[in-house]
């Protein structure tokens, strides 16, 4: 999208907002771009190092007290989730290309810098907590599932088969991190395919690996800016773009950047609604008078 097009668009949006609310606030400037706190932590997953052993999947369940997700192919029972679900916060998937090349892929919450899930949640049951970890508080959750529809990575899962459900998603083992520990997946990995650390350190590390072995990697660190940035970063093998691994092309703006800017423009300080109410109140009063209503009980 060219800058001129974008500005035209902004103009239309503002005009529409103006038409909808009659407010000059619609032209207020955009909110500053969100950033993670300076002590933010994250994960770096290097797909070229992962051997698909699933140790992280097992240890994640253990650390979070998650039940097995059992399947019984050929009669024997396996803990074999087929995707992230209400019993699985972390999973290793396999990508197989037309050319027969394969790559493993770890999926869990990306701990977005500007998380859509937290932006949309009515009373902040999902919220960006200490060190930028996106955390869940079931005590506030009403189960509207807006977080699920809003998350660009389809991460939050819902306990569909119970009368008293919760939202389930990776919280970067915050109960361990709070006590100075590290997430179970990073602790479990025998190949250091996933490592835990400060966000800035991880970013530098990822870029260093790219620069050091350009032939080994697809030339991009996913999560550096994607969707406004994520605290979980990815490296993929050369020739395997991130979309193949299920990481969508989101551009550099987060979803909330658009929705919050627009509603901020319209509802800033609640001035527009109050002004509109005043105008409406006056108009209704005038009609009320001239239409001879409200007197003598004839509505």
């Amino acid at each position, binding site marked *: 999208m060219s800058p001129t097009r974008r500005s035209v668009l902004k103009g239309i949006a503002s005009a529409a907002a103006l038409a909808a609310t009659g407010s000059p606030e619609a032209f207020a400037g955009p909110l500053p771009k969100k950033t993670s706190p300076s002590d933010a932590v994250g994960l770096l997953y290097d797909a070229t190092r992962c051997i698909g052993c699933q140790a992280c999947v097992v240890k994640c369940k253990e650390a979070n007290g998650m039940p097995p997700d059992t399947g019984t192919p050929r009669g024997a029972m396996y803990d074999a989730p087929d995707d992230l*679900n209400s019993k699985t916060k972390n999973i290793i998937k396999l990508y197989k290309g037309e050319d027969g090349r394969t790559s493993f892929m770890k999926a869990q919450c990306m701990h977005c810098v500007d998380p859509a899930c937290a932006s949309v949640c009515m*009373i902040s049951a999902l919220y960006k907590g200490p060190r930028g970890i996106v955390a869940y508080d079931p005590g506030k959750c009403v189960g509207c599932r*807006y977080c699920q529809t809003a998350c660009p990575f*389809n991460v939050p899962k819902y306990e569909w088969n119970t009368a008293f459900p919760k939202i389930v998603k990776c919280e970067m083992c915050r109960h361990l991190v709070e006590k100075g520990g590290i997430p179970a997946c990073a602790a479990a990995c025998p190949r250091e395919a996933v490592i835990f650390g400060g966000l800035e350190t991880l970013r530098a590390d990822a870029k260093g690996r790219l620069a050091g072995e350009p032939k080994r990697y697809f030339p991009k660190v996913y999560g550096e800016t994607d969707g406004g940035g994520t605290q979980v970063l990815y490296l993929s093998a050369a020739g395997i773009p991130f979309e193949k691994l299920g990481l969508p092309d989101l551009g550099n703006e987060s979803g909330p950047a658009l929705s919050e800017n627009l509603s901020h423009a319209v509802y800033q300080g609640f001035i527009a609604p109050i002004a*509109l109410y005043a105008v409406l109140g006056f108009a209704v009063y005038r009609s009320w008078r001239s239409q001879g209503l409200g007197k003598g009980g004839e509505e």
Partner: protein
Amino acid sequence: MSHKHEAAAVGGPILTRTFIACLAVFALSIAVLAWRFVVGLGPTTGMNDGYPWGIWIAFDVVTGTALACGGFSVAILCYAFNEGKYHPLIRPAVLTSALGYSLAGASVIVDLGRYWNVWKIPLIWNWNRNSVLLEVAVCIMTYVVVLWIELSPAFVEVWEKQEKYPLLCRAARRVHGWLNRYLVAILALGILLPTMHQSSLGSLMLVMTSKLHKLWHTPLLPFLFLATAVLMGYAAVIFESALADEVFDRPRETKILASMSSVMVGVLFVFLGARVIDLALRGRLGLVARLDFYSGMFLLEMALFLAAAILLLSRKRRDNPGVELISAILMMLGGSLYRFDTFLVGFLPGPGWSYFPTIPEMTVTIGFVAFEVLAYLFIVKTFPILHTGVPSHALGMAAAKPSD
């Protein structure tokens, strides 16, 4: 305004066959709901982690409240633009709005997984001001109350005449006095709140920059949702009034409706123009030319609206009640499809996910609609909602003529 319009109860037996049929369907939906509250949403609905919102949101709430925007559309014309001639349409429109919104509210509760926490939503210190859904929720909750207050003169008019029950009678008179004084403030709220939450229903999808199909995702979403709310509300008024006139054998209110139609033609063209220009400016018209499933849905929406606009374009056709009814139905379909597409069809969670409502899920939706019908029948027969169609000075004559 020189003459006043009077509303009167339609009267007649309550327990008709339609009423009992609706009651049966509603009872069935309650049974399904009991099951839903025991086993959860998984076994009862088609929803899943890819499609966490199904028809209870996309139809009952997002489409249903727009079809229930009659009270809003007529109130804008009648009060905000001081067109008193629309006044006879207000009460029936507000009644269907009150019913539609109340049931949308009920659908939300049924859909919420952790409904026992809802009492925390109104607590201001909990609010996440960035959440569009919060605004929608608070606004709709308030609007339901506002609608019933707007409608309450119809109830107190009846109750204050119940001399047999002096307490009820006195309370009703007190309330009526209060309403006469403060209804202006409530009526203004009745226009403000739908303006806010109907546009915000569109804003709900703004955040889904990557998951909503590009034919539907646009910064104009709030505006387009507001426009469709006005259009669908108005179309629903025409539809209901045609239906009420048919069922209760009453004179048609064509004249008033026809002049409303001329206003709607303008709104229709603004909606159509805005969508096309928006797509063109952002270089997305190619998506329409693709002629795949999505462009087909898009074109169908546009065709329904365009057909309605063309039908209403000429004065002569507008005055024809049959044409008007058809255009109203086209608008209701177009608007419903637009909203349904935005929330379900155009919602793309990624490969491997699919959704189709289950029979229990549909039963609940149909049961709620059935409840709406039976409540409507009961209320118009018991309370002065529908307009008698004649100026009040002729009312003596009209009253002599039986109107079942």
